[in-house]
C-alpha cells in the first residue's frame, strides 16, 4: 500500500503501519535522522487520501499553539456589536462569546475534527522530544481518549480518531506514559538493496549504476563512525546533486564531481575530510 506513495517499507514498518491503522494507536517512531520518519507520515496521508496535519514541536510549545486558542479580537468585536445593538443579557452574551466559532483550531484540534465519514486525518507530531515535559501532558489526553477538553465549552471528541505518527530523535527520554499508549518502532537504516530501490523510485532519472554506487558508499560511510552518519535523505540529496552535475555513474571520471558535491551528503567538515579521503577507494569497490 505504502509503495504506491513511493515509500518502500520493510516488513517491520509495514506491520507497524498496518497495526497503527487497525488498532487506532499512535505510532511512535524513533531512529537516526534522515531514515524516513517524517516521510512515513506523508506517505500514510497520501495513501489514505487525507491531508497531513503537522505539529512541529519546540521548547515552549503550549496549549494555545498546539490545541486551540480563543479568537480574542473577534470575541471583542462581538461584544462591541452586542453593546451597540443594546443587548444587556450578560449571561447570554457570555455564552455567545465562548462559542465554537470563536475557537481557533490548532493542529491537535484540527486533527480531531478533520476525520469524518470514514476518512481519517493523519497527524504528525514531529520531534516530540524537542517539546518540554509540560507538552506531553496535553498530548496524553488527546492520544488516549481522542478528546480535548475546553473549560469554557466542554469536551470535543473526534468522530473518527486520526492516524498519529509521533517521531523522536531521542534528545531526551520521552515519558513512559506517552510511550505506553503508542506502538513503538525503531527505524533502522535500509540495506543497500532497499536503498537502491528507494533512490530509483524517488529519482527515476538516476541510473541503476549511480544509485548502487551511492547506496554502497552510504552503507560504508555509516560503518565509518562519522559525527553524523548520512541517512537516506542525504543519499537522495547527493544523488540529486550528482545528477545536476551530469554524473551518470560514479566511475573514476566522476570522482571530482562527487567530491565537490559531498556537502549534500555529509554535513560536518571533519566527516567531509574523512569521506573525501576514502571516496576513490569506496567508489572503486562499489
Amino acid at each position: 500500500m505504502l509503495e504506491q506513495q513511493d515509500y518502500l517499507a520493510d516488513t517491520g514498518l509495514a506491520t507497524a503501519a498496518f497495526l497503527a491503522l487497525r488498532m487506532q494507536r499512535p505510532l511512535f517512531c524513533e531512529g537516526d535522522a534522515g531514515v524516513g520518519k517524517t516521510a512515513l507520515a506523508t506517505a500514510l496521508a497520501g495513501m489514505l487520501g487525507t491531508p497531513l496535519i503537522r505539529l512541529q514541536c519546540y521548547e515552549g510549545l503550549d496549549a494555545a499553539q498546539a490545541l486551540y486558542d480563543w479568537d480574542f479580537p473577534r470575541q471583542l468585536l462581538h461584544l462591541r456589536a452586542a453593546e451597540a445593538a443594546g443587548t444587556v443579557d450578560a449571561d447570554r452574551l457570555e455564552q455567545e462569546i465562548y462559542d465554537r466559532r470563536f475557537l481557533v483550531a490548532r493542529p491537535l484540534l484540527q486533527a480531531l475534527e478533520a476525520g469524518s465519514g470514514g476518512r481519517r486525518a493523519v497527524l504528525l507530531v514531529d520531534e516530540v522530544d524537542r517539546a518540554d515535559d509540560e507538552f506531553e501532558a496535553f498530548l496524553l489526553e488527546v492520544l488516549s481518549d481522542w478528546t480535548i477538553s475546553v473549560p469554557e465549552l466542554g469536551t470535543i471528541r473526534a468522530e473518527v480518531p486520526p492516524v498519529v505518527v509521533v517521531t523522536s530523535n531521542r534528545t531526551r527520554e520521552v515519558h513512559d506514559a506517552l510511550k505506553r499508549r503508542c506502538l513503538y518502532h525503531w527505524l533502522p537504516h535500509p540495506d543497500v538493496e532497499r536503498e537502491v530501490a528507494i533512490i530509483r523510485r524517488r529519482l527515476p532519472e538516476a541510473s541503476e549504476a549511480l544509485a548502487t554506487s551511492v547506496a554502497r558508499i552510504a552503507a560504508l560511510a555509516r560503518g565509518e563512525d562519522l559525527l553524523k552518519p548520512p541517512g537516506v535523505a542525504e543519499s537522495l540529496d547527493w544523488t540529486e546533486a550528482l545528477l545536476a552535475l551530469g554524473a551518470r555513474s560514479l566511475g573514476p571520471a566522476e570522482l571530482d564531481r562527487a567530491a565537490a558535491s559531498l556537502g549534500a551528503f555529509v554535513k560536518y567538515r571533519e566527516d567531509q575530510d574523512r569521506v573525501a579521503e576514502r571516496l576513490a577507494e569506496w567508489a572503486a569497490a562499489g
Partner: protein
Amino acid sequence: MTTAAGTASAGAADELTRTLVGFARVLRAAGVPASPDRVHQTVTAVGHLDVCRRDDVYWAGRLTLCAGPDDLDRYDRAFTAYFGGLTAPPLRTVPPVQVLRPVAVPGTERPAGEGPDAEELPAATASEVEVLRHRDLAGLSPSEREVVRRLIALLDPVGETRVSRRHRPAYRGTVDPGRTVRTMLRRGGEPVRLERRARRVRPRRLVLLVDVSGSMQPYADPYLRFAHAAARRRPGTEVFTIGTRLTRITREMRSRDPSTALLAVSAAVPDWSGGTRLGELLKAFLDRWGQRGVARGAVVVVASDGWERGDATQLGDQMTRLARLAHRVVWVNPHRGTPGYAPMTAGMQAALPSVDDFVDGHTYDALQRLAALLAAGRGGGRRA
C-alpha cells in the same frame, strides 16, 4: 496479513494469551519492562495479524512491548529463546554488590601516616564532622564513610539557570496580549488593566560522567552518591558511568534512598574497576546522547583522574567536541587536591584546554565546594 482472530476459537485465544503472558515474563526477566497493559496490547495486535506466522508474532510483540532501542536486542534474544523452544537466555549475572572499600590503590598517592584509621567512631560530633570534611575520601574507616555518605546526601548540587521560551505572569515585563484580552472580556470589554508577563527561568541540565575504573575505585562511591543527590534534587539530571563501557544510570538513580539507588547502579554497571578508555567512551557518549541534545547547553561534570589507557589525542578531540556542545565543562579530579599534584597524565593534558573549571574532589569539603561552584554559574573559567 490476514485476520486470524475471527477464526480462532475461545480455547485457542486463551492459549494465545497464556503464551504471550509467559513470554512477557521472560522479557521482564531479560530487562524489558513489559507491563500488563503492554501485554494486553500485544494480544490485540496479534489478533489483527496471523498468529501462525512467526514474523507477525515477532513484530506484534516488538511494536507493543519495547520502549527504546536498548530493549530491541533483549527482545530479540528473549523471542528466539521463548519461541524457538530453547531454554531461557542466560540472564546477565548480577555482579555482587561491591562495597567500595578504602583500599590503597596504586595511583592514589597519600602520605604514609594518613591511611585508614583503626579506631571506629561510634557517632559523629560536630568537631569530628569538621575534621572529616578535610579527610581524603579514600582513607575513611567504615563508620566515617557512613557519616560522609549522609553528608553527601544533604548536598544541594543544583546548577545554573537559563531563560526559557515559556512565559509566566509577572508584575513587570512586556504586555501579555492573551491575558489582557481575557481580563477585558471578563470586565465587559473594558481595558481595565494591562496584564504583563516575563520569561520563565529554567535550570540548565546537569550531566555527570563518573569514572568507575580501577584507579578511581575509592572515589566512585562518593561521586555516585553526589550524582544521586543531584539527580534527586533536580529531575532531568543525566548520570553515566565510564570505565571499559559507557552505562547510562539515570534510571537507576531515581530511587529516593541513595543506598537503594547505588545497589541498582552496581547491578547495572558491568565494568566496575576495569580500565578506562576515556576518549572512546566520551565519543560513545557524544554520539549516542550528547550530540542529540543531552549535552547541548548543559553543565557537564566529568569525574575522573584522567588516566587514559587509550589514545590521548582522541580524548582531546572529544573534549573539544564536548566543549562546543556544552554550556560549561567541569572536570573533577580526586588527585588534584594532593599536594604537589600537577596534571601530568597525557589524558589530563589533552583534556584541560577544553575544561572550564578544573577542581579537586578528594574530600567532602571539595565536593561541597563543587556543589557551590555548580550553583554559582559560569565564572573563573579557564576556557576562553
